[in-house]
């Protein structure tokens, strides 16, 4: 039997068992994921559809009396999206290839078997393609559908979208794998500072290349068409695989089958060539790189009282023990777990994008009071959602992560109440730094009225208590002591419930504020006193709700832990 077929068959069986195991998972979790995924897909479709409809009407209006530029604008927009996805796929494939080819648990197992490095690479490569590209399929399908419906395209557009999908994702996957193979061979021999410098230069060059393309939204309308044509011209390079895919799909939609077939064959032949090149490269340089990485001196010496982490005890001297020991331990474990970091980096990346967009919104003049009020409410929602992301992903698993080490805490002269209290205050203190800071900064950048500003800041402060209470309390009520991976702890029944209740809490807090602030913006109150009384009622309600969200889950969780046998 062929070795490649053996690997493929085993992987297919694994996928089959994974799918079948969904039946054994929490019904609530499956329902939440299904509903959210469907809502996301439908939301994406309507977003793309309204975007394309707007482009069509804009293009028709702009070209009144002249040639219709709506089709050109749509094609250019598709080119921009394809190019952005193409670069993102290369980047994600570099990261995924590294973990799939070098770090996965099955790598040593496969390598001790009688298979060539070429075959090893190919068997793992398809996993990289699947891992890095499923999201493109998930969000690309509503895009193509929206494009086809809004532009009244032929059914062949959808068929072409499906056929072009595989070669289009294979090209960046192969490029990403080649970059990883070379980096793994070269990187360990280079100084980290050199590699960081090269990485920064590469990202800078990429940014310069696409800067114009993504800056067009800031232009005024009278120059926008010329600017769009000019800026998006780079996405139309015949040397870009994203251009081949976009052009081929559009040609199929316009019934130009010859052009579509040509672009398809161009994409497929390049995909095959790149996969072949990557496999040959793997045959030559994979093993030296793998062995060098495995053979590095991994001794990590961390002397007491040296470095930032080493001085934590000194920093928290003002805290009484055992709280200090627990806080220092939690911070050290968090910092030394790379899986936690990667999540944190993604989180701050999203935050940076949010802040950059606030900057753009803040520069515009928002005349109407009603819209300023709406923006303030949306900003409160954003800040509290950021907070709930932090508590759901990082705070909820804290109790479960004590896991099989619970006996250490159980034997220590420490009550469960002290432990839960420590987790709660650690959460409130750390998340407050980020979220209250974000609320103040975003409020200032948006220039919202004073009443909106202070209400936002108060809501975020009080939400820190409410959401921490929910996360720590439910973490104690539904602990998972068998799991060491925080991501898996979060995806369990307790994590799902915490997520849903957090969203519900945020909806109530933001909803109450939106009502009172819109009321104020539209000046519907009969006297100022009436407004202040209403505001006091809203603030009191939010406070009461937050106290409930804080103390009820904490009490239930505490009771559960105290009655638990270890």
């Amino acid at each position, binding site marked *: 039997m062929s070795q490649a077929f*053996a*690997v493929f068959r*085993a992987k297919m069986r694994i996928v089959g068992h994974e799918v079948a195991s969904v039946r054994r998972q929490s019904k609530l979790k499956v329902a939440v994921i299904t509903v959210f995924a469907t809502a996301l897909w439908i939301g994406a479709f309507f977003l793309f559809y309204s975007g394309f409809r707007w482009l069509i009407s804009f293009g028709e209006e702009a070209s009144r009396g002249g040639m219709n530029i709506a089709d050109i604008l749509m094609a250019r927009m598709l080119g921009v999206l394809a190019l952005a996805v193409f670069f993102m796929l290369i980047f994600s494939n570099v990261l995924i290839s590294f973990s799939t080819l070098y770090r996965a648990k099955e790598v*040593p197992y496969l390598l001790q078997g*009688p298979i060539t490095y070429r075959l090893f690479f190919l068997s793992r490569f398809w996993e990289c393609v699947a891992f890095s590209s499923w999201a493109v399929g998930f969000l690309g399908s509503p895009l193509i559908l929206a494009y086809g419906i809004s532009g009244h395209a032929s059914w062949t557009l959808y068929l072409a979208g499906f056929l072009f999908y595989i070669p289009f994702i294979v090209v960046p996957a192969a490029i990403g794998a080649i970059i990883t193979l070379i980096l793994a061979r070269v990187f360990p021999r280079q100084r980290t500072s050199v590699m960081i410098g090269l990485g920064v230069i590469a990202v800078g060059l990429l940014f310069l290349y696409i800067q114009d393309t993504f800056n067009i939204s800031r232009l005024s309308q009278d120059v926008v068409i010329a600017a769009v044509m000019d800026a998006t011209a780079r996405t139309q390079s015949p040397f870009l695989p994203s251009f081949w895919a976009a052009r081929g799909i559009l040609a199929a939609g316009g019934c130009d089958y010859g052009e579509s077939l040509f672009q398809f064959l161009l994409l497929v032949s390049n995909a095959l060539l790149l996969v072949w090149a990557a496999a040959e490269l793997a045959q030559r340089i994979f093993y030296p790189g793998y062995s060098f990485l*495995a053979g590095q001196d*991994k001794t990590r010496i961390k002397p007491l009282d040296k470095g930032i982490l080493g001085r934590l005890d000194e920093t928290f001297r003002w805290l009484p023990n055992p709280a200090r020991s627990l806080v220092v331990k939690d911070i050290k474990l968090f910092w030394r777990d790379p899986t936690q970091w990667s999540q944190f980096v993604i989180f701050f990346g999203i935050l940076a994008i949010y802040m950059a967009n606030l900057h753009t919104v803040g520069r515009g003049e928002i005349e109407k009071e009603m819209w300023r009020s709406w923006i303030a409410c949306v900003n409160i929602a954003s800040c509290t959602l950021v907070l709930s992301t932090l508590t759901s992903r990082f705070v909820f698993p804290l109790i479960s992560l004590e896991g099989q080490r619970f006996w250490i805490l159980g034997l220590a002269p420490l009550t469960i109440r002290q432990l839960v209290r420590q987790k709660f205050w650690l959460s409130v203190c750390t998340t407050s730094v980020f979220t209250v800071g974000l609320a103040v900064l975003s409020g200032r950048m948006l220039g919202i009225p004073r009443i909106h500003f202070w209400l936002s800041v108060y809501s975020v402060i009080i939400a820190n208590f409410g959401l921490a209470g929910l996360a720590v309390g439910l973490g104690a009520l539904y602990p998972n002591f068998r799991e060491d991976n925080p991501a898996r702890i979060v995806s369990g029944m307790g994590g799902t419930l915490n997520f849903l209740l957090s969203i519900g809490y945020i909806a109530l807090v933001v909803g109450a504020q939106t009502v009172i602030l819109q009321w104020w913006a539209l000046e519907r109150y009969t006297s100022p006193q009436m407004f202040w009384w209403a505001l006091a009622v809203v603030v009191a309600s939010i406070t009461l709700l937050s106290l409930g969200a804080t103390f009820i889950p904490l009490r239930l969780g505490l009771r559960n832990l105290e009655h638990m046998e270890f």
Partner: protein
Amino acid sequence: MIKTEKLTKHFGEKVAVDALTLTVNEGEFFCFLGPNGAGKTTTIKMLTGLLQPSGGRAVLGGFNIQQQPVEAKRVIGYIPDSPFLYEKLTGNEFIRFVAGLYQMRDGQAAQRAEGLLRMFGIADVADQLIEDYSHGMRQKLSFVSCFLHEPRIVIVDEPWVGLDPKNIRFVKDFLRERTREGTTVFMSTHTLSIAEEVADRIGIINRGRLLHTGTVAEIRALAKNPGTLEDVFLELTHEETE
């Protein structure tokens, strides 16, 4: 069958294995002993081709593991101390996967797997997902997968973890039986009483250097005071450390 010449591995500045020269003959049961961090696992990783040596060479069944890795791996079987198994496959599916990797014919693989699964007492759980197996069952499955392709050389890293006394006895007898049939067994272990019982020859490694090789009687004779293999081992490695 196994021949290493000045096999060396550096991890940065640290020398994990220092010019190891060793020969293990066909049908020999060789036990590789050493304290924690002595270089046993690094040696095994070089013998199985998972690590590239910094110097020297290893030849298994006549094939240089670095220059002819596929040919060498075809004749060896490896049982790690904590085996990796695909959690979402059943025992039978995993065995079929291994048979495919070693390019065995379907009928031959099925027949051999059936015998081994029965012999190791896991035939009745072979259709269960591996994630539901106990540690001992996983260890037995890794034995089945190792012996499926009838390797001429078997490299075993501390195989007793998770096995009950009955199964330890079974594995000892099984490995001894294979050596009588001509299979070479290279086993790293901390369980000195078992090594004393089964080994044809013993090698003691400490701080990356091979201190002594010989039969149990020869190793015992090296001690200043007569005693068990454990006493001799502690004396030899203690002297070396000092």
